[in-house]
């Protein structure tokens, strides 16, 4: 596979990653968000494998496999179990309506394009075109964390940020050192486990998974004393 062809496929995958980040923002149902998040993990693994194949860095293969297992299979499965066990309401609730969110998302994408473009020009790597897209994906996932009311969707947003950072690393430096990769992966795994435990505890205490309800409950708790 020639280098130019591989670059086109990587560009195509970058475009798909941007599309998935937009879709994560625009979904109305909790399970759809989870499916798109899993798809993002698979796409990321495929991109890492492709970059590994065309640049010849075999460490990226290990990253790709880890990404696939962890972010494509394990984390989505854990979150799905949490959603089912806690009977979280099917709808995703957000602070502003989806039209406004999409407009802000587009503005954020334009902004990251504007900011990263001069930096892209200095890079020599094959994957340099995707740096702006990776930055946009990071910012979009952060936007997802900000504009959602339910704790579960905020956690998915956090995990999506981590996905996008991995994608950015592939684009900027063709992958981080393997030790760093493994460390981050285990940190994310532990974080997911702890989140899972905490969700059960939060549900027991507050009877709800909504941030507003938790805040209100805390405020009223002070009133009683």
């Amino acid at each position, binding site marked *: 596979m020639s280098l130019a062809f591989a670059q086109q*496929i990587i560009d195509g995958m*970058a475009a798909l990653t941007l599309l998935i980040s937009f879709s994560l923002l625009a979904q109305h149902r909790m399970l759809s968000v989870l499916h798109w998040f899993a798809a993002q993990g698979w796409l990321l693994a495929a991109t890492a494998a492709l970059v590994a194949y065309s640049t010849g860095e075999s460490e990226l293969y290990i990253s790709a496999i880890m990404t696939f297992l962890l972010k494509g299979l394990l984390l989505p499965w854990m979150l799905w179990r949490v959603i089912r066990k806690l009977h979280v309401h099917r709808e995703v609730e957000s602070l502003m309506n989806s039209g406004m969110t999409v407009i802000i998302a587009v503005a954020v994408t334009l902004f990251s394009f504007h900011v990263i473009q001069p930096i892209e020009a200095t890079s020599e790597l094959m994957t340099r075109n995707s740096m702006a897209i990776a930055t946009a994906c990071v910012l979009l996932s952060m936007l997802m964390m900000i504009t959602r009311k339910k704790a579960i969707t905020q956690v998915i947003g956090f995990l999506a940020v981590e996905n996008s950072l991995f994608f950015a690393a592939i684009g900027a430096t063709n992958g981080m050192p393997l030790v760093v990769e493994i460390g981050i992966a285990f940190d994310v795994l532990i974080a997911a486990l702890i989140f899972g435990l905490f969700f059960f505890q939060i549900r027991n205490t507050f009877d709800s998974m909504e941030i507003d309800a938790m805040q209100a409950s805390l405020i009223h708790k002070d009133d009683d004393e």
Partner: protein
Amino acid sequence: MTSFFFQLLQALLMVVLAPIAAGFVATTKARLQNRCGASIMQPWRDIRKLFSKEVVLAEHASWIFRFTPYVVFTATVMAASVVPSLLLDTPLSLTADVIALVALLALARFFLSLAGMDIGTAFGGMGASREMTFSALAEPAMLMSVFVLSLGAHSTNLTTMIAHTLSTPLLIQPSIAFALVAMLMIAIVETGRIPIDNPTTHLELTMIHEAMLLEYSGRHLALMEWASMVKLLLFATLIIDLFFPWGIGGDVNLLTIGLALAIWLAKLMVLFVVLAMIEISIAKLRMFEVPQYLGTAFVLAFLGLIIHYMLEVTV
């Protein structure tokens, strides 16, 4: 002279094949739903039957009502006749500007909506209101799609755009893929298929396009039905020309043209099978979900534009 003859042949083919194309979609849908379905020639038989029937006008109909079928038919056929399907470089190819095509179809729609308001029933007004609203909201997405496509050729002339696509080497361009999905979504809105509008409905409250045709009869109705079939074929050919133009005839000889005809028909069949599958697998959207659908199309096209500048233009 021969290229002029082929231009005429192209136009005639569009008009003659349109009912067969509509019949093909209907039959494929039926077969996919495990029904026998009518034959492919049924729309042709319907149109012939309508031409021989008497025209009855409502008491209050004005000259606009009688004038509209001719305007709609001629505008749609004019638009269809300049879209290249067999031969790329025809004498009138310079008039094949995408924006002018869209404007001709908009003229047809303007008169159709006026005819809907002319009778003074609630149905006509309802159809006119809905049709104009949704087509207005579809315009930005359509324009953005065309924009993305014209970035490569720096032109909105169809012939120039096709020539540009044919001459560049085969590339995977994500922006074009986004533009394709957006254009497919818009084509469904413009031609009034499921999931936006049900072309076979008989319930007036679910009608958008049919509501404006409710009072027409005889040859007027035949012209309007034929025009909407030509519009379907026009959009299918447009999508094929913009995104998959390989195989179109370059020079004027019988072998190239014959091959181009066969390839065009094959591509049309694939596209119509895809359309039929979409129609049977999705339910018709609630009317006020259509703006969200159109907004998604616009965002996709705009993303295609941004991705073009991010990925495909080397700084």
